[in-house]
């Protein structure tokens, strides 16, 4: 009951905060468009002159790197926005008041999770639709479903990560150091820029600890004709495990007393 009450309040707050909604839904659209411009700029231009040996510009496999980059944007925004909103609860005193009034911390975390489900779903729909359209990805229904599912679960994991990290921050400023600490390794070590197989063993190991790695394992193979849900199942299970695990840890780390 308490969970539903909190979820309803979070949804009402999200609906009422137009700036926040715009930031959650419109900002990623722009970023993905900038991403398209970046990838276009990286493609070699056709030249009438024969290329000199060893001087070829690299060909960027857009399908392989564009979709993981899109997933990272969803991961980044969901994490940052959810963390900030929860930390705001702390700085405004409403989190403490909820706890003293008699709300259970598990109900607060559960309420936030449910409240964000809708936004995460909407964000995933908008972002994947734009990415597919902009990059002219030729996906069949199975691939589209798989892409939507993986980005959606990733955004839920990001929300859980946000809830977990927010338990360590006393004010908004405390969130800032966590952004590079947690999100930048995801860019470098999970296949967004570099193929993880080409990284040194220790770096590849760190990549395995990050949820984006498992999302990218699926995303990078989505276009393949013989890639099925059964093949993607282990990575899906790990991602769901991250969501459940983070939810559990957050309920342990959320402090009720000072």
């Amino acid at each position: 009951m308490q969970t539903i009450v909190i979820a309803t309040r979070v949804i009402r707050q999200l609906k009422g905060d137009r700036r926040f909604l715009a930031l959650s839904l419109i900002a990623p659209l722009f970023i993905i468009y900038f991403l398209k411009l970046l990838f276009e700029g990286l493609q070699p231009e056709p030249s009438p002159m024969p290329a000199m040996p060893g001087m070829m510009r690299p060909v960027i496999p857009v399908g392989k790197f564009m979709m993981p980059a899109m997933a990272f944007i969803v991961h980044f925004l969901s994490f940052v926005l959810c963390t900030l909103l929860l930390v705001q609860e702390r700085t405004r005193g409403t989190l403490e008041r909820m706890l003293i009034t008699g709300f259970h911390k598990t109900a607060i975390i559960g309420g936030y999770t449910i409240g964000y489900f809708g936004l995460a779903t909407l964000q995933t729909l908008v972002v994947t639709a734009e990415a597919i359209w902009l990059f002219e990805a030729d996906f069949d229904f199975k691939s589209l479903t798989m892409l939507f599912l993986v980005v959606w679960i990733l955004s839920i994991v990001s929300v859980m990560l946000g809830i977990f990290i927010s338990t360590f921050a006393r004010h908004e400023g405390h969130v800032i150091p966590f952004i590079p600490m947690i999100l930048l390794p995801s860019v470098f070590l999970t296949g967004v820029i570099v193929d993880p197989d080409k990284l040194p063993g220790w770096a590849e190991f760190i990549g395995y600890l990050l949820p984006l790695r498992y999302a990218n394992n699926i995303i990078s193979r989505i276009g393949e004709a013989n890639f099925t849900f059964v093949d993607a199942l282990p990575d899906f299970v790990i991602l769901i495990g991250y969501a459940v695990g983070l939810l559990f840890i957050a309920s342990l780390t959320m402090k009720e007393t000072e």
Partner: protein
Amino acid sequence: MLAVRITSLSKSFGKNRALHEVSLDVPPGSIYGLIGPNGSGKTTMIKSLVGASKPDSGKAEVLGLDPLLQRWELRKQIGYMPQVPALYGDLSARNNILFFASSRRIKDAEERVTKILSFTGLSDRASDPVRTFSGGMQKRVSLACAMIHEPRILFLDEPTAAVDPELKRKFWELFRKLADSGVTIFVSTHLMDEAMLCDRVTILKDGEILLVDTPQNILAKGKMKISFVRSGEKQSLMIPASPEALVIELQKLGLGNSVSELRFESDSIEEVVLSMIQKSR
């Protein structure tokens, strides 16, 4: 049973000592004031009593319950109004109250909210978002949130800070009405004049108790200046501000026809408390 019992409670934040060996008892159905300058430990004490702060040592009991170990049982019976309004600006006054009420199973919540909105003079603005409210109105909503479940004890952390005199008077009238109906009011303030409105006060300074007494007894610890004109000559003398001392002095003076003017000037409670704080340095 006492409403609150604190025994040798201490709490530090790093090197900063917030409370040191504090002990006090609060009888039920009274207005108990926690008076002291900013940083004296008032908020920490209230947070220790509502289970939001874990003391380093010592013990606190509220209605015979441990605020940490028996917090779920206790939270049904207490109301807490923090120093900041701690409300959702996008929600209306009614929905804020309903939201905090929903943490407990209140059968007639809607009805109670309507009543409390009227009680706090918020009926006309009940549906407006709280972010459009003045500071004083937000305090009223915050108080309503703390009272909606009809608690046995209300913990109020500086409820009248930044509130205009008219509203302040209304708040204190409300506190007195609640206390008369058996609710214990545990209120902190840095405004010394509010001490006079309490049944009993504790003066805190740097996390330590300077004094626990009734406001009248605290006032009696001040001084009174008696000025008079006798046979055309102005005279004055200082005496302790107690009624007993005044009677003795007036008897000594002998009020005959030669006295043409008589004035009394007593220290205010603020002057008495400040002089105590200064002496303690």
